[in-house]
């Protein structure tokens, strides 16, 4: 059984991640595209399930949380990579993307990095198997 306080913190964080992904994709994006929508729906479901497990102290919580974190980390890395490559492509075509463009892209990256890269990485570290033989 893992410690209660970190379980609560990560449970709430996963709940928040689910909300950010759902709102970011299904409310903020102006168009629907199946690859993004499906990935977001799956990730939202995984994060919600892992949050429920961690908050309720369920026995299966750690395993589901590991899957959710791995999925979030993979998708987060893909998203940031895609954003960075897109910036490279656009700046190749249009030249410097300008101060406004840089701010917009930095904000998107700043939104994605904490929830989809830093948090799952920390959570995976916390979810490492116990050192007890």
């Amino acid at each position, binding site marked *: 059984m893992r410690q209660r306080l970190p379980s609560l913190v990560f449970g709430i964080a996963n709940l928040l991640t689910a909300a950010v992904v759902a709102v970011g994709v299904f409310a903020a994006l*102006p*168009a629907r595209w199946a690859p993004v929508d499906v990935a977001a729906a799956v990730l939202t479901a995984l994060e919600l399930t892992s949050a429920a497990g961690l908050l309720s102290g369920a026995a299966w919580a750690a395993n589901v949380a590991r899957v959710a974190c791995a999925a979030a980390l993979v998708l987060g*890395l893909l998203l*940031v*990579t895609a954003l*960075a*490559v897109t*910036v*490279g*492509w*656009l*700046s*190749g*075509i*249009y*030249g*410097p*993307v*300008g*101060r*406004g*463009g840089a*701010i*917009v892209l930095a904000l998107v990256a700043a939104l994605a990095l904490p929830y989809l*890269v830093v948090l799952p*990485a920390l959570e*995976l*570290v916390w*979810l*490492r*198997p116990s*050192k007890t*033989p």
Partner: protein
Amino acid sequence: MAPAFEDPVSVRVLVRALLGWAVATVALSLIVRSVFALDTDADHPRAIVASVWSSGALVGRAVLAHAGDPDAALDAALSSHPGATLVYESAVGEGPVLVRPEAALAMSLVAGRDGLSVTMNGRTEYLTPDDLLVRHGYDTGLHLPSIGLVAGVDVPLALAILADRFGTPARDIVEHARVRRVRFVRSVPGSPPAPVITGDSMTDDDVAAGAFAAARFLARGIDADGRFRYIVDAPTNRTLPGYDWPRHAGATYFLAQAAALSHDADLAWATLRAASQLRDHAIVPCGPSRCVGEGQRVDLGSTALAVIAFVEIARTALDRGYALLVPDLTAFLRGQQRPDGEFMHEYDRGASAPIDVQLLYYSGEATLALSRAHALLADPRDLEAATRGLSYLTGPAWSFFGSRYYFGEEHWTCQAMDDLRDRAPDPRALDFCLRWQEYGRAMQYGPGDAPFDVDGAYGVGALFTPRLTPVASRCEAGIATLEAARRAGKTAAELSPLARQMRRSLALLLRQQFRPGPQHLFADPDAVYGAMPASAVDWQLRIDFAQHAGCALLAWHVSGG
């Protein structure tokens, strides 16, 4: 012995993996940038696409190795089309382009600068910027209505043009051709490029000439009934459908100013014809007063702008009789005002009742209209209503969390503030307008901020061609703010940034105005001389584009810069 501890996600491994990913991502982005960036050399073009244009139609084309090289096809086209123009589009840079997905191809060409070279079966065809400009091929490819975004090349159109030239289905081009992005620079042999007007070089003569050319463009479009050519498609000179009373009234207002300042009899006559259309066909009963509109439900803006136009016509003595129409119309405007100063923007003529909805611009227009009416007729009720309107617009209407960091496009309020400055000065309103302009300054492009001609325009990124009407309307408000601030005692040094901001925006308008523009792409260049396009690549000419630009230029001219 205890079993070895298995840690599939050790901290060290994770940190190393993430650092490796970060480095790889940065490297990949730089490589992608380098691959897609163009290496341009204007002095040594790779090819020169020579085109013969006649009345906006392409009648001959050849690819030359050097400018001035003889070509029989070009000579034949020029001799068979008297008055045709030979135009060179020099390929000064070339690079790869993503053909799929369609959105990537759409966003791969810089509007107005880039075209394509397509090689298939040993033959190369060029799709040049002029080919796309004449067909409205830029900034029409991607539509995202939810955020009001339209950008990118119209890919089906581009492929259709190329398919026609190759005599093959468009699908073959996507699947089998070698497609490259090409940066072009246009020149017309024998016609040296016109001097470029900048904020520093702009003279008062430039400004006056631009304003009066815009007015004459509008005046030429007025028919026997006094209606404008509401939207003109510049390449074909066709009049497109649609009409709008607020914009009719706004254009009439601008014509009245231009007619009075230029003493041009044709402009005066055009003004009065447009005004008579409003007077005779657009004024209807609205409860106890009268308003401008049609149908059961009318809006505030039509009446407000009609008042502004009628006051200008009377004030400048083009026809003092128009003053007689004003009191009934201002009574309607006052009747639409709420106790807090805000206006109700629609009116139900069947129910004889205002509808308390708010639309963009109308409150500012009504406030300015009441102020102008008071200046002409001295009805204290108009001054009181205008003062309350201004107080609301610059106070409660723009008071919310973050309102110090965000401003909209509404440009009438600050003109009303300036108009009222001697009769009902409002320091808080002046402060609001100065802050709005400061916000605009932060959003203003400088030279080199984008691959387009953007110095003086407003926007947040380099990907979208800036629209010119928001530049013009911000100038109208900015020049009014400058005037009011000067009278309020602000020093020249304090106002220097705002004055420079205005000069750069006005210079942009003058550079983009069709005076004459790329004449070879127009069916009738004389018909669109003086017009203001929506943007550098959107050549549908609506009357308010010329009106706002013209009003801004005239305001600068009158203020003496």
